[in-house]
């Protein structure tokens, strides 16, 4: 190797005479290190070669293992395992199908729950409306409750309750909200939308429920007859709904049906009660006169 010799001669001029001994010693050490480095490189190359050989061997073994039958497992056992695998695959498929079915059932139950919840709420509204309507025998109070139900449960803004005068065959406004009673003219039975509803006993619903700026008292959005059996005793007339209400729900129609029957009986019974009270006080007056 020429390297260390060259290093030895070239290093001379750098050092002074007194330093020649230590400089040579240092050159030997460098040479030693380089030799060791060369040996180490040789070893690494050998190791590399050995590992390459081992890798090739391992790859060959791996390839042959893949090709060879499983050691210790007979053909029957292998067949059984394959069958088991197939049956497990089928079972897995069935479980997945069942899982999907259960999921679908869950969705159905959730939808049904919502429907029942909705129905429950509707029944609560109907119960309260009915309860309130029959909670008093005072005519004015009954009218007030009818107005409350129409405002709060149906969501009407302008409406009136009209009673049929059986002598004149005219419908007269007895209570109203959002419109003065005086602004609603008496309507003759069988005349116009309102008169026809009172005559036929069939409810009227306009298709366009949009909010109107000015209203025509003879042109309502909704007109519901108040009936006792077949007999119409008055009508509920709705002219405008609240701004946020733009359509009727199923509950609204059920409330209209309830109002048609229950308001009539509540109004009728309260009127009868008032009349009987009045008659009773008149009779009492006579009795008092006769007995005094």
């Amino acid at each position, binding site marked *: 190797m020429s390297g260390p010799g060259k290093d030895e001669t070239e290093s001379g001029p750098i050092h002074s005479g007194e330093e020649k001994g230590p400089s040579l010693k240092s050159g030997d050490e460098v040479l030693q290190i380089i030799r060791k480095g060369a040996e180490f490189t040789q070893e690494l190359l050998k190791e590399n070669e050995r590992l390459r050989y081992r890798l090739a061997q391992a790859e060959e073994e791996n390839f042959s293992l893949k090709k060879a039958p499983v050691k210790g497992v007979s053909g029957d056992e292998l067949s059984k395992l394959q069958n088991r695998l197939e049956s497990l695959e089928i079972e897995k498929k069935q479980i997945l199908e069942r899982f999907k079915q259960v999921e679908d059932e869950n969705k159905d139950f959730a939808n049904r729950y919502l429907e029942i919840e909705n129905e429950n*709420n509707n029944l609560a509204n109907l119960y*309260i409306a009915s*309860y309130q309507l029959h909670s008093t025998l005072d005519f004015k109070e009954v009218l007030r409750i009818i107005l409350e139900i129409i405002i709060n449960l149906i969501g009407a*803004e302008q409406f009136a309750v009209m009673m049929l005068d059986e002598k004149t065959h005219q419908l007269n406004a007895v209570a109203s909200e959002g419109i003065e009673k005086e602004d609603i003219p008496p309507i003759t039975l069988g005349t116009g939308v309102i008169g026809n509803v009172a005559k036929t006993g069939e409810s009227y619903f306009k298709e366009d429920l949009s909010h109107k700026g000015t209203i025509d008292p003879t042109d309502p959005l909704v007109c519901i007859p108040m009936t006792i059996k077949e007999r119409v005793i008055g009508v509920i007339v709705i002219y405008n709904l*609240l*701004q946020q209400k733009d359509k009727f729900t199923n509950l609204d129609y059920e409330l209209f049906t309830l109002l048609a029957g229950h308001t009539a009986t509540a109004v009728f019974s309260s009127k009868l009660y008032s009349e009987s009270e009045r008659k009773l006080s008149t009779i009492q007056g006579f009795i008092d006169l006769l007995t005094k």
Partner: protein
Amino acid sequence: MARFRILVVEDSPTMRQLITFTLKRLKDVEIVEASDGVDGLKKISAGKFDIIFTDINMPIMDGLKLVSLVKNDPANKDIPIVVITTEGGQEDRDRALALGANSYITKPIQAINLLATATQLLKI
């Protein structure tokens, strides 16, 4: 003793019954009713409430005044207040909320909205 006390301030007996009937579906609640703002204030001063539902248009004292008084009272200012009214306009909603109301429900009320608002504010 109930876990939550709810005050319902509403002049209409029909609405009061409907709101109470609906809120009773919540677990562990006691519902107290008041027929106007003054009645509501009396009930508030007599006991502690976790939430107040109030109508806006009421005789004697309306709901907005009640909201204002409760929210300006250091002892009760943290009670959540839900305003229930027939007014659907944004202005009325803003007015109620500006006074300190925590939520707003318009009539006709939907039970599901009422219960959702109550559970959210009561953190049930």
